[in-house]
C-alpha cells in the first residue's frame, strides 16, 4: 500500500517537531517522493546520520511501502 505525502510529512514531524518539510511526489504513484527537510536536529551531523534519522522517523516504511525518498536534509543556516 503506497503512502501519501501528508502521511510522510506527519511521521517526519513527529520526530522533528521544528522541521520545515516539503515533499514532492516524483511520479504520482505514491512510491517515489523527494523531501527537503530543514531541522536544528541535523546540525553537526554527517549526511548519512541525517538521512538515517529521517529513515527511522518513517518507522520501517522506507524500502517497504516507500520505495524511493530522495532526501535533502540540512540544519537551518544562521544567516
Amino acid at each position, binding site marked *: 500500500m503506497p503512502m501519501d505525502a501528508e502521511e510522510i510529512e506527519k511521521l517526519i514531524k513527529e520526530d522533528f517537531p521544528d522541521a520545515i518539510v516539503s515533499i514532492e511526489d516524483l511520479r504520482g504513484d505514491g512510491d517515489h517522493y523527494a523531501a527537503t527537510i530543514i531541522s536544528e536536529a541535523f546540525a553537526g551531523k554527517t*549526511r*548519512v546520520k541525517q*538521512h*538515517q534519522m529521517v*529513515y527511522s522517523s518513517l518507522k*520501517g516504511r*522506507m*524500502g517497504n511501502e516507500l520505495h*524511493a525518498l*530522495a*532526501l*535533502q536534509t540540512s540544519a537551518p543556516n544562521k544567516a
Partner: protein
Amino acid sequence: MLDDTTRERIQNEVDANDVLLFMKGTPVFPQCGFSAAVIQVLSHLQVKFSSVNVLEDPDIRDGIKQYSDWPTIPQLYVKGEFVGGCDIIREMYETGELKTFLEEKGLHSEPAA
C-alpha cells in the same frame, strides 16, 4: 536479524575492496535507476570499483541493510566506510566532495574527460 555468516561475508567483501558498490544488477546491466546513477558517477570519476549484485543474493540484499542501518540499495563503501546511497553520492559528486574524498583516501580519480 543479521546472522554472523552473512555479516562475515559482507565484512570480507567490504574489507577486500577499496571501492565497493552493493547494487541491483551489474555495472554493465544495472537493474535500477538509483544503482545506475551511482555507476554513472563512479564512471565519470573513472574510479576503479567492484560491485555486488544483491539481486543474486537475498541474504546479502537484506543483510547489508542491517549491516549499515540503511534501508535501501545501492550502498557505496570506500575503504570499509559506508559513504551513502544514491542521493548522498550524487550530492557529493555535484559539490566536488566525492572527488576530494576519494583523493584523500588515496584513490586518485582522473577528471572526467
